[in-house]
């Protein structure tokens, strides 16, 4: 700030460059926002006008008809999907943290003789894999994961990348503290829970959010393992509505045969809105954690 005031006159070249920066950044930001606003606008439109004029940013007539329609015909399905998405996100994130944090901590300790071997054991899984088919057969034939709640988070339980993010955070802890605790007779488990975790809260929360986003946004595991519609998370409900292979529910088929016009187009967009709504609400509070996590991961991962 002081530097800005100190410079008496900004040269013309700088002015032009700065102006161009503003223009490009604002245009790009609008381009990032526009699709989301469009989806929001269509979800508040009436199917009739969409049929006439197509999708547009400003609804012809603001209406909640689509949302009313969704909750009347398949409100329960939606609630169940929402519950499953939240359940997967919470259980998955807790499981992942519970499993990842100790590993990351141990791998950060210089006193562990085999830590490099263990790191490689973890890292190797990211540079070579058996491929989709053996993985799929193992999960389905041996672990019987088909149509189970477990299938929605267990296969993603540990992310090597997030683990390394945590490891580099643990590695920054001053060794003297750990040594002092050891002299006082604390074991590794006690040190982890009493000292290392309390001193690394922010990175752990960050990785927790990264995991939570991964689980909330996942639909791959559903595509692979879930045939039972009762177990569809929100993302996959959206996927199947967009695919059009199956409509909302049996109620829709009935109403299609009956008198009511089915708002298929606006339903697609309203479902999209319902899927991203929780993220949009949480975004202002969690954004800084993600920035931090990505920065740590990029620099040291």
């Amino acid at each position: 700030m002081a530097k800005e005031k100190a410079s008496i006159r900004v040269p013309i070249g700088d002015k032009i460059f700065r102006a161009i920066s503003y223009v490009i950044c604002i245009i790009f930001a609008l381009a990032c926002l526009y699709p989301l606003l469009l989806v929001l606008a269509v979800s508040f439109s009436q199917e009739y006008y969409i049929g006439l004029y197509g999708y547009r940013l400003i609804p012809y007539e603001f209406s909640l008809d689509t949302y009313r329609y969704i909750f009347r015909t398949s409100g329960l399905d939606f609630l169940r999907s929402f519950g499953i998405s939240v359940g997967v996100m919470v259980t998955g994130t807790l499981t992942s943290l519970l499993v990842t944090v100790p590993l990351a901590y141990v791998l950060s300790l210089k006193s562990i003789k085999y830590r490099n071997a263990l790191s490689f054991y973890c890292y190797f899984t990211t540079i070579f894999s058996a491929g989709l088919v053996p993985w799929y057969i193992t999960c389905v034939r041996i672990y019987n994961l088909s149509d189970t709640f477990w299938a929605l988070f267990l296969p993603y339980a540990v992310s090597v990348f997030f683990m390394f993010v945590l490891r580099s955070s643990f590695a920054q802890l001053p060794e003297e503290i750990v040594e002092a605790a050891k002299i006082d007779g604390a074991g590794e488990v006690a040190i982890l829970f009493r000292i290392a975790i309390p001193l690394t809260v922010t990175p752990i929360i960050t990785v927790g959010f990264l995991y939570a986003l991964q689980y909330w946004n996942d639909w791959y595991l559903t595509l692979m393992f879930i045939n039972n519609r009762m177990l569809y998370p929100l993302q996959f409900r959206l996927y199947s509505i967009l695919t059009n292979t199956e409509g909302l529910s049996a109620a829709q088929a009935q109403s299609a045969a009956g008198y009511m016009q089915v708002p298929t187009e606006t339903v697609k967009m309203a479902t999209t809105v319902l899927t991203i709504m929780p993220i949009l609400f949480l975004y202002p509070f969690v954004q800084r954690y993600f920035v931090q996590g990505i920065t740590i991961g990029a620099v040291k991962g």
Partner: protein
Amino acid sequence: MVSRTLSVSKPKVAKRKQPELIRNAPAYAMCIPSLLYFLLFSYIPMAGIVLVFKDYNVVDGIFGSPWTDPWYNNFRFFFSSSRVLEVTCNTLILNLFFLVTSLVCQMGLAILLNELRISSIKKLSQSIVFLPYFMSWVVVGGIVYSFFSNEYGVVNSTLRSLGMEPVKWYQSPQYWRTILIIAHIWKWTGYGSVIYMAAIMGIDPTLYESATIDGANRFKQAWLITVPLLKPTAVILVLMSIGRIFFGDFGMVYGIARDNGIILENIEVIDTYVYRSMRVTGDFSLSTAIGMYQSFMGLVLLTLANWVAKKINDGTGLF
């Protein structure tokens, strides 16, 4: 001299007779759940690789199924099916485009954002450009649909209102590579710019001060100071993408194109091809072989990228 060192270190050795594995047993025990995870979901499936030499059928399972007659039978796709070569080309082409556009857009946006001086505008645009990263590919698929839907999409409405002929996007494979590239830019530019912004923050400000004294304007400073100093970050990111160039983004392609065989024509990547051939034709052995070929190429490329990274970075590789 020798005897003295021995006599000093000897009691130490005697004291530490307990092997390290036992002394640190609690620490190793804490790792067991996650090590078990890697065993179950990464290493055990590797045994399934024998499938490439088998004629898999569901009844006999992986190990009970008979061996293929000529041992290379499942690799016949190399010679007979040109589709595997096609999807390999698609994967490489798409990833190359992603690599170049990411590099230019992400670094460019970070440099431009760094020029903004009104902090409210700077913060707001940073928040907005980072937002698409939080959207799943299914959501992006819905957004793409809202733009390119044949009847209702924004693009066709615009074309109509301009008096031009609307395009049947979802029946025209030739446009979809471009659409994927745009979607990729939309989703990842904000994310990547976060990485570059962090690197820019690490640049010594005195460099800019002395450049100002020497009369270099902001653009010259960006071009001659910021860009060269961002090179190490860029090189690592580029090498990482080169290492993964044989891996398509299943979520992106399948989330946007779904099962639409027509538009998949030009954008089908190895990953979606393996999935679709497993699900549609049910030829598990052949799909395993194609996956195997991909894993192998991936391993080679990653090792290569890592070797280059080590050469450039004085010994620190990608992993």
